[in-house]
């Protein structure tokens, strides 16, 4: 299993990780996460089954998401983001906002100059 390279040096999350975490702000399973990602990105990002499984497994091991016990269907495991995962998302949101401000300022200065 390949670890997703997150939180190294600059602390940036991969797009896959961030999308999966966002999909888990409500209880969700693999199929639901896949649909959420495809829908919210208008089809730009489509996660393969193997990649999605690896992402969920990795986040579970990092304890950023918590599995929920679904007695109705043991095959469809549901997960939900926990407090640690939400903190990671908030950190990522701050970083993205900072990058957006930097990029907007740089492009504007280039346009003005």
């Amino acid at each position, binding site marked *: 299993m*390949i670890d997703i390279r997150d939180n190294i040096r600059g602390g940036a999350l991969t*797009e896959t990780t961030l999308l999966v975490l966002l999909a888990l702000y409500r209880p969700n399973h693999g199929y639901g996460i896949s649909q959420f990602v495809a829908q919210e990105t208008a089809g730009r990002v489509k996660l393969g*089954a193997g990649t999605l*499984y690896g992402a969920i497994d990795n986040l579970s091991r990092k304890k950023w998401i918590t599995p929920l016990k679904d007695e109705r269907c043991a095959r469809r495991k549901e997960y939900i983001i926990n407090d640690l995962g939400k903190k990671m998302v908030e950190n990522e949101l701050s970083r993205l906002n900072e990058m957006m401000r930097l990029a907007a300022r740089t492009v504007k200065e280039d346009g003005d100059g």
Partner: protein
Amino acid sequence: MTLRRNGSTRWRQYGKIQDYKDFLSGLGYKVLAKNLNLNMSFGKARWRPFGRGSGQVATSPGGYNKEILIIEKKADGESFDVHTSYDDLIAYYQSIRGMYIMLLSIVIAFWESRFLASIGSIPYALLAIAMVLLLIPIVLYSRRISMYKRLRMTNE
């Protein structure tokens, strides 16, 4: 009803394989397992060259062989990719390349053994051909892996 197939050769422990199969079934895919029988056995113990750590020695049912998972879905016009991140693609092609490297190592071992010297030069010619044929996929997969590693540095 038309089906599309994809295969996954990622090596996992038995429990993880079941979990992965359940996950794939939950996505609406049909999952079939096929043994690749890449192992060497001594009594009830089997050596799995592609296992990790203590997982290389298997003595319990379900842990004997390396499996390939065949995943089927209805053809709906959508692409069918199991691995879509560069890390997963690199690992996928590295495992395939690893099998060819293992085969090449076995061929080289035969080349070096004294057994062949006693039965003439024809086996050496065949082994040389086998070595060349095995090097081709190794080189091709290595180039693909390098390409994905370069892409991974700037893109996800």
